[in-house]
């Protein structure tokens, strides 16, 4: 795609007494188990030698179980938590060497965050909460109110401008949080488990809201979640964390289709694979004669859709990209996907 917005290299965050924590990255101590490390040094490694790039315009999801270091990682990006070691760059500019004013500028204009527990100011109205980011930037009252009203409208809260956060439901509060982050028109939106405090149905609504926003505006997003379904639904790429390390980073299809290790495999076991994998991954090279007959499918067609096409015609379907046949999928291949069997001899 395009140039990275965030570029993170060998990032470490070690909680604990600073003198000791600084010595952990790269040393032998880093290889101890969490318990032992805590006993020996009083330190906890939350983020461990993590590297990744967030590309412009993508939704980058960081996923992992509770305590795997996701929140810490995303807070390190704007130095809400000070990293212990490693490099972070935003648009090529080193974040760790920024002085206070630069850092404030980064937080004000370039990256806004949406929090799991909303973090709204209880004594302000919805409108004033949304306008808060502009207010601390010094925007005039009329200007920030107009902009805030626009954002409130955008997240579907029109009519509730005068309420206070305490008078809103959780979903509505999170919409306010979202509007507040959007109001400053940031380059990147950071989400820390924004929907895990919400009911499943509302959560679904909000996820769609985010997908829609991303579709409309193409804003870069870093999205933290512990919910695999959510990650697959909205992520362009997913990084899977375990004990502070990224164990695999790739598209949903790569994660589900070729798990890097048993941990990831276990993680994605219950995923309906036909709804994530595409025929590009399921196809095999076409045998003689097959390249001309049968229904044509685009490579990005989901396996679940291919099943329908194959079932209807009874024969294998072709995977066609720009008039060229890349391969075919038949009953056998499609069933193997659904059953989770390893796919051998995949086409290029």
């Amino acid at each position, binding site marked *: 795609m395009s140039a990275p917005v965030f570029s993170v290299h060998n990032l470490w965050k070690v909680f604990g007494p600073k003198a000791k924590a600084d010595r952990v990255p790269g040393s032998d101590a880093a290889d101890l188990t969490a318990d032992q490390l805590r006993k020996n040094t009083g330190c906890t490694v939350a983020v461990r030698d993590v590297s990744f790039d967030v590309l412009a315009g993508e939704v980058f999801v960081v996923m992992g179980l509770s305590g795997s270091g996701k929140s810490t990682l995303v807070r390190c990006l704007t130095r*809400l938590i000070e990293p212990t070691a490693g490099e972070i760059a935003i648009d090529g500019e080193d974040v760790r060497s920024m002085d206070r004013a630069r850092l404030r500028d980064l*937080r004000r204009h370039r990256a806004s*965050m949406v*929090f799991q527990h*909303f*973090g709204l*100011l209880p*004594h302000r109205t919805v409108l004033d909460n949304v306008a*808060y980011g502009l207010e*601390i930037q010094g925007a005039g009252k009329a200007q920030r109110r107009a902009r805030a009203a626009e954002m409130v409208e955008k997240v579907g809260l029109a009519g509730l401008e005068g309420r206070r956060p305490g008078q809103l439901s959780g979903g509505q509060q999170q919409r306010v949080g979202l509007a507040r982050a959007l109001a400053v028109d940031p380059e990147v939106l950071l989400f820390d488990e924004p929907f895990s405090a919400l009911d499943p149905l509302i959560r679904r609504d909000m996820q769609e809201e985010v997908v829609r926003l991303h579709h409309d505006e193409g804003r870069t997003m870093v999205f933290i979640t512990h919910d695999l379904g959510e990650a697959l639904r909205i992520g362009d790429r997913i990084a899977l964390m375990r004990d502070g390390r990224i164990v695999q980073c790739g598209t949903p299809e790569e994660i589900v289709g070729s798990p890097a290790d048993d941990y990831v495999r276990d993680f994605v076991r219950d995923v309906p694979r036909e709804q994530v994998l595409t025929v590009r991954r399921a196809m095999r090279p076409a045998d003689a004669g097959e390249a001309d007959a049968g229904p044509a499918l685009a490579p990005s067609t989901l396996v679940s859709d291919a099943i329908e096409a194959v079932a209807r015609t009874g024969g294998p379907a072709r995977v066609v990209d720009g008039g060229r046949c890349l391969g075919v999928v038949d009953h056998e291949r499609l069933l193997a996907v659904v059953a989770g069997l390893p796919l051998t001899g995949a086409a290029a």
Partner: protein
Amino acid sequence: MASSATATDMAATATSPARNALWRALTGRRGLGKLLLLAMIAAVLVPFAASRWGSGAWPGALTVDLSGPLGQASNWIIDNRDTHPLFLYFFGWISEGVIVAVRAVYLLLLALGWTGVTAAASLLAWRVAGLRVALTALASFAVCGVLGMWVPTMQTLALMAAAVAASVVVGALLGLAAGLSERTYRALRPVLDTMQVLPAFAYLLPVVLIFGIGVPAAVLATVVYAAPPMARLTALGLRDADHGVLEAVTSLGATARQRLLTARLPLARRELLLGFNQTIMMALSMAVIASVIGAGGLGDRVYQALSTVDVGSALAAGIPIVLLAVVMDRTTAAAGTRIGEEPSGPRWSYGWQAWAGVAAVTAAAVAAGRAASSLTWPGSWMVTIAAPVNSAVGWMTSHLYSGVPVIGGTADWAGHFTTWILDPLRSGLTALPWWAVLLIVAALAWLIGTWRTALTAAVSMAVIGVLGVWSISMDTLSQVLAAVAVTLALGFAVAVAAARSRRVEALIRPVLDVLQTMPQFVYLIPVVALFGAGRAPAVAAAVAYALPAVIRITAQGLRQVDPAALEAARSLGASGAQQLRQVQLPLARPALLLAVNQGVVLVLAVVIIGGMVGGGALGYNVVYGLAQGDLATGLVAGAAIVCLGLMLDRVTQPSSDQAGKER
């Protein structure tokens, strides 16, 4: 007053780790181990000490006579007050500033006239707290006028206004520092905690030493007494601000200043207002007590009247004090609970229009008062209650004091209480060998706290001995112990009743509300009417003052006992008494201990004040020192009061250490 502070403390106490630790300390082997260790230390030291200094009251060889040096210091200050640069350029300025401020407020109040002040106060109460409180305010100021107390009321108000303003500024600044810096908080917290348990009387002498008797001393003593709650609650509010909100604010790029002004302070509004409320109540309480160092106003009227046992006049000045307290408490408390509520009602009743209306009506009232050239309350609208009250008291004295068939009279009760309880207790305490007292104090404090608590308590007690006021302090201590015993017996009984029956609770709640807002000093009036002067009335006043807090804390503790545990006990067929004894009381243990602690602290405060109505002992020494200009005696007594307060607090405060560790 004290109750709101304790509510927050209670939350800390109620945490189960603290409870468990305490439980273990009291019952487990740790407690036994501590006692054994103490016994061993005692076995080595006591024979030595006893053989060297004897085993009676505190040995004379171990006392230091401070009256000489203290007298010299006080003389030096008096001689140099007008010449030394420290006084000329520092204390002098403070003193001038205070006088000017109080004077200015006083003149303003007089200029507003009774119409203006009453209108302003009622309308303010209406804006902040609603119609009911506004009507209360209106009625209260009217009563002040009717009782012929308008001018003293304005004097007290002026003094309070200056003192509260200073307390709020000082307290808020200290609280800000402590709320923003962990190190300041650690340094400040023990100081504030200790100040909170010291009786008001302990503050009087040091300020008098520097400023002499008069308004400046009264105001400064009030500030010192009233600023700690503001500081405490400001710090608490700032420290407890929701971290999620602060993080969100930071993530949007707020500067430290913006974070403080737009998030931290607004988030702490409730605590700030609670602090303001407590500061006002403490200031009123002290402004009245400070009449013994020249505060003037209502307190002075009460003080003068009580010293001649003129109950009628005391009551005439006491009623306005109570009314002021109620109005101020309700107004500021309502401001706190109304935070965040949406304004309602017609448009003119809130926002700037309402304030403009308040200003306009007040101005009209002032103009009306001036037009009728009636600035102080009109004399023809006054009712003198002193004479009828005094004749009623006279009737009581002749009919109820003694000789009532079967039940005896109030004076008889007081006499019996003195003969059968106070006297034996005092002679018992005095007869105890001094080292035994130290050992008992240390053992109690150690059982319930750490070795450090024990050391503080024992050293405080030893300091009392060294100061040479051992036997007087034992007198005070005997009154405190007797009053605490009565308070706890009554308090627990009422609390159990209140916790078990909603009806009883609904019945006593308003009574407790009023009792808890009344300044300490006022409690002396009815007991003098009932029992005359002496030690028993002092004890009675102390009981009356401490009882509401004890009842409230205990009842709350009992009611908060986990309903599931009660349910389980009931399902096992426990009777009501069994439930109480085996489930409620053990589970409410932290609340009970807190009640004991509060009871002791409050009782001490009033027992000391009781020195003004014949309670004698340390309180009397302070009053005597002030009245005779013998500051040395007063200062030594003041120091002893501080030590006694520290000791009593430490032997009854179980959780301070554990709670401190958890924070």
